[in-house]
């Protein structure tokens, strides 16, 4: 009898516990949902100014068309964009000529004069209509106001022959289709970020294939620590125009993804270099680095050299990227991390171009991601 009473009381206590636990669970879930929807609503309210595109390609690019395509695509995603006329008026009034980044004063004025909360800066790295067409571009969202920060950054490099399929059925020969794919990719990524407030899950990378040929990490740098990093344009020794700026953008992009690095907006770094009249003869000197540490409040400065940054035209060829990078730390005034990496698009490709990389952008992106693994692992 006593056994049955005990088991009855146990059952009652379990039922009571479940009844207490369930509503609390529902409360937690609803709170989480409310929080997510609140942040999503907050992000949805962001008014974004889409700046005219800048070209780092060194060849003619239909920048206006590309910008219009991206604007339309972002509108379709439901994003709140600043009226183009208001932005144009601001650009004319401010005599804004450099659109590859944004400095503190412009970010502040953009906030107060136009009411935009963020600005979208897009740099076109490659645009080639010759079959198979190729396009590479990098977009980044920067907050406006007195303290601009890189909120989101996304780069993409596509070629018409990236996945040709059986009997070349998937070969893209129309540049408009490729541009459409690239623009869609960028706008979807931005919309995802704005709706969720975070990056979509990173895809799996072939780290071993793109592992740097040599790297050094000083014990001074601690992988778990938070650092504010200023990425300066790389010293360009290649034949490709603007390769130094392109490599710097790759590092900004990958460092932003890592999470434990606060990346200073490249436009602010550029403004500091111009204001302080810093000319890098053969890379960053310690005196120049000291100026950047104090001016930008950076803990580390990343600089480097680009020896090769080659894309190719047509069917035959392969991209080639060769760079070295260094990270100088503020307190020790020492190089705390350095790496050297070089790769070609057909590295590790043996049969029918299977696995070949067709744009320098994609390859450089993988190489930089692998190089930074040695910094944080």
């Amino acid at each position, binding site marked *: 009898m006593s056994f049955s009473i005990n088991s009855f009381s146990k059952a009652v206590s379990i039922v009571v516990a479940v009844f207490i636990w369930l509503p609390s669970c529902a409360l937690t879930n609803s709170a989480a949902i409310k929080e997510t929807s609140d942040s999503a609503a907050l992000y949805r309210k962001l008014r974004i100014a889409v700046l005219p595109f800048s070209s780092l390609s060194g060849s003619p690019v239909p920048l206006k068309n590309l910008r219009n395509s991206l604007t339309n695509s972002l509108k379709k995603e439901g994003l709140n964009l600043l009226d183009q006329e208001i932005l144009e008026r601001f650009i004319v009034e401010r005599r804004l000529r450099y659109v590859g980044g944004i400095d503190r004063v412009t970010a502040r004025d953009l906030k107060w004069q136009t009411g935009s909360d963020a600005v979208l800066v897009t740099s076109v790295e490659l645009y080639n209509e010759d079959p198979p067409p190729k396009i590479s571009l990098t977009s980044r969202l920067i907050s406006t106001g007195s303290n601009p920060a890189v909120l989101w950054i996304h780069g993409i490099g596509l070629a018409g022959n990236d996945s040709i399929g059986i009997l070349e059925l998937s070969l893209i020969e129309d540049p408009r289709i490729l541009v459409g794919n690239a623009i869609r990719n960028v706008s979807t990524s931005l919309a995802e970020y704005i709706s969720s407030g975070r990056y979509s899950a990173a895809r799996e990378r072939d780290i071993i294939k793109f592992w740097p*040929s*040599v*790297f*050094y990490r000083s014990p001074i740098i601690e992988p778990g620590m938070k650092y504010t990093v200023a990425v300066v344009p790389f010293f360009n*020794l290649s034949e490709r125009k603007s390769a130094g700026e392109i490599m710097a953008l790759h590092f900004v992009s990958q460092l932003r993804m890592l999470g434990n690095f606060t990346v200073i907006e490249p436009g602010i770094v550029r403004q500091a270099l111009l204001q302080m009249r810093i000319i*890098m*003869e*053969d*890379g*960053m*000197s*310690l*005196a*120049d680095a000291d100026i950047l540490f104090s001016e930008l409040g950076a803990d580390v400065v990343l*600089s480097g*050299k680009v*020896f090769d940054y080659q894309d190719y035209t047509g069917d035959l060829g392969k991209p080639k990227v*060769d760079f*070295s990078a*260094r990270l*100088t730390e503020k307190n020790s005034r*020492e*190089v705390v991390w*350095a*790496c*050297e990496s*070089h790769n*070609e698009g057909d590295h590790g490709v043996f049969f029918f171009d299977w696995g070949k990389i067709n744009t320098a952008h994609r390859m450089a992106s993988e190489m930089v991601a692998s190089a930074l693994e040695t910094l944080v692992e």
Partner: protein
Amino acid sequence: MTKPENILKFYLPLLLVFMTSCGPRAASTNFHDPEMDFAAVRTVAVLPFNNLTTDRLAAERVRDTFTNGLLASGAVYVIPPGEVARGISRAGIIDPTSPSSEENARLASIIRVDAIITGVVREYGQVRSGTATADVLSVSAQMIETQTGKVVWAASATKGGISFIDRLFGSGGRPMNDITRAAVDELLDKLFQ
């Protein structure tokens, strides 16, 4: 009794081996100052290498690989090239690829280094033999102690070139970056011997 033919058969190869060993020894491509305490060298500066090739970037590429390799070894700290360039400018060195003892001393006092490394890239690029082609790199480097101005280490390395396999199959040799890394590794091995 041993037959004279058997004696000849036994001693002739020995004689040949002995005679070849008496020939001139191949000159070593590595020099270490026996009086130098290399453990005392903590910080070094790698100056721009002298470029004797037609490739305008050859010296800069090899220097960069050498600098990174030396830094990655963890044995010494290598001053970044931007700081070296600033030192060269402030010391008023006219030809940084072959500085004089006074210039070395001036540079060392500005950028505070224990030793300076200079180098020469003698060959960089493709060589051809018949129908076969391959990349080759030939580089030499030397370390100068800044206190005394003495050369305390010198070595050279040559990598790449046309191998028997290249001639047979016409493979075209290894990529230039791999050859550069192999040559630099050989130089560093010789330095830390």
